[in-house]
């Protein structure tokens, strides 16, 4: 009953994904920049509540796309932004952030040699900055309930487009997108399944912490926004599996997405094939441009050894979520809380 309209500003145009059918019962929700959903929501809400007046500086710790989304929204709102990042930050992203007017502070390699790694070092530096400035606003994406809440818009869109959804698959990092989207969908469809896709060596679902090559998913510290009780199943992918799946997504469906999308696609395709009567939606958080010199470069993949093993057809169904098996693995989480699952295995190793 309405006509198509225009967007009020650039960040408004990033709010909804494109729903693209990949198979008889599989749809991809392709975002240009998924983190724009919570970034815009949190900053606009802070402004409405009077927490973001003209002199207030927005500060946040991030080395990824949440910072980019904040920087874009800060342009619209004409606010200063300081981001605390680490040496791992992508050089092109750094240039784009500074072009948007953000101040990007990078903690040093030495500062990162503490328990919790760079994530802990960045938090320490963030607290120093907040203590130095008069008025700051930190979105705290890992603990702010407005992060998952922002995804009501996405859930509304899914239901308007599809009506019935039996399973949602997506990569997990802050917990915002999966917990937020699934919780909102379940207001109407309580039986809708949720499959979280994590990286090996991420503590989110019990793996021991370790260095992770795969970006865009997995954590070294547990985010408060993480609600384990929404997940029916968890998958852990390896970099080779995620990268190869990312390329297959491009080759078979012409979808040019990042490696966290590829990892989610791998799990979603497997589940949708095994459950042909279930309508499955897979979250794809960002596009492939940042990975053109890596995931989309065959020489890079070969040199790193990511093409040695072919992509397996099925995950290893793990009996113990705390024990990494070194390849794509899955575990039935069954909507339990973290402590309950961990207590069965003597806690995280």
């Amino acid at each position, binding site marked *: 009953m309405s006509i198509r309209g225009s967007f009020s500003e650039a960040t408004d145009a990033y709010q909804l994904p494109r729903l693209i059918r990949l198979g008889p019962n599989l749809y991809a929700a392709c975002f240009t920049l998924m983190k724009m959903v919570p970034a815009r929501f949190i900053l606009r809400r802070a402004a409405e509540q009077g927490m973001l007046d003209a002199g207030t500086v927005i500060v946040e710790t991030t080395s990824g796309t949440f910072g980019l989304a904040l920087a874009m929204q800060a342009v619209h709102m004409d606010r200063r932004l300081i981001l605390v990042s680490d040496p791992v930050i992508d050089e092109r992203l750094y240039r784009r952030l500074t072009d948007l007017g953000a101040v990007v502070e990078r903690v040093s390699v030495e500062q990162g040699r503490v328990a919790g790694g760079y994530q802990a070092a960045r938090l320490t530096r963030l607290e120093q900055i907040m203590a130095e400035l008069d008025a700051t606003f930190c979105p705290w994406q890992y603990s702010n309930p407005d992060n998952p*809440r922002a995804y*009501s*818009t996405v859930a509304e869109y899914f239901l*308007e487009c599809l009506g019935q959804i039996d399973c949602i698959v997506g990569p997990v990092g802050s917990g915002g997108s999966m917990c937020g989207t699934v919780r909102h969908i379940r207001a109407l469809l309580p039986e809708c399944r949720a499959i979280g896709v994590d990286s090996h060596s991420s503590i989110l679902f019990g793996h021991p912490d370790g260095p992770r090559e795969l970006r865009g998913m997995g954590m070294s510290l547990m985010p408060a926004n993480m609600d384990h009780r929404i997940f029916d199943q968890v998958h852990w992918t390896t970099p080779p599996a995620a990268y190869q799946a990312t390329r297959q997504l491009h080759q078979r469906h012409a979808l040019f997405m990042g490696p966290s999308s590829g990892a989610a696609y791998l799990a979603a395709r497997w589940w949708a094939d095994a459950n042909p009567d279930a309508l499955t939606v897979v979250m794809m958080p960002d596009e492939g441009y940042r990975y053109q010199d890596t995931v989309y470069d065959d020489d890079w993949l070969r040199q790193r050894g990511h093409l040695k093993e072919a992509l397996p057809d099925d995950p290893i169904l793990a009996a113990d979520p705390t024990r990494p098996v070194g390849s794509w693995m899955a575990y039935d989480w069954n909507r339990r809380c973290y402590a309950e699952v961990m207590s069965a295995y003597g806690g995280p190793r």
Partner: protein
Amino acid sequence: MSMRLGEPRPAEPELLTPGLSAGIGYSIAHHGELLQGVFDDGAGRPRRALVTMPLPGRGSRAVFYPSQSHWGVVGPPGLTKARRAAIYALREFSGHPSPAKGGRVEITSNVPHGIGMGSSTSDVTATIKAVADYHGVPLSREEVGRLAVLAEVASDSVMIDDRVVLFAHRDGVVLETFGHRLPPMVVIGCDTAPGQEVETLGLPPADYTDAEAGQFQVLRGALRRAIATEDVGLLGKVATASSRINQRYLPKPGLEPLIELGARHGGAGVQIAHSGTVAGLIFDPRRPDLDLGGCLQRIAELGFAVTDVIEPAYQQLKQLNQPSQLNQPSPYRQWKPPARLAAS
């Protein structure tokens, strides 16, 4: 109560100005809501709003007898909202070449009072239409809605009878039009607390949380699809979810048994009156496993009174505008709840 359903009292001659004709207005009733909560109004402001479940088989007919000698409006005792509606409507026509100074309102209605069927909204709407009719000036449905909200603080959207809308019932504005009509469906209406009455004005507005606002947003998207694609199953799920969220504010003890009952008989979901005791079991008439008869019997066994079997998409408004129907005694009044199974 007997005043409302009985014969109109004879006109009081001293208030009538000879030679002036009367105005007539009619409004249907409703059977609670399909969805009620808080929603974004498009300008970033949250507004309380609802989607009405129309009840075309019941309604109110108002006759407005103008007076050029007396200010003020006389109306049936107890119906202060309808009297107030007439006053607001008269104010609206003060610029008319020959406005009525005041007058008298008579209402005939077969809408039960205090159980969430919108008896006062249909009285108010019919009254506003009657005053407009007398002045020969048609009011738009939205104008009637705005005046109705002025007269009674919160109104269902029975006056907007040409489409399905999300209506901000405390502001009198339409937030969204979902479609021209509801999908073909059958609703078994029942009273979950026969004999009890809810005083609408005595209810504090529900204080929805942020989390609930997010849930209502999702339900709005699903309802948009359900109406556009005539998907009764999806519409039923929306109504059930909305009913459950609102249990925190005006709990219906019988809601969960009704939801379960509907599901067992091929039902799509349950809608409720958010300011009353009625609830409706929604059925898709196209479903092969539909079992209305069995369901009607079980409702009685739960101790609830069946009020109406409603088919909103099929009933023609034309038929309902015949006043003869209104003078018949309400079937609800004649209906006696069966003896509870517990007695046997």
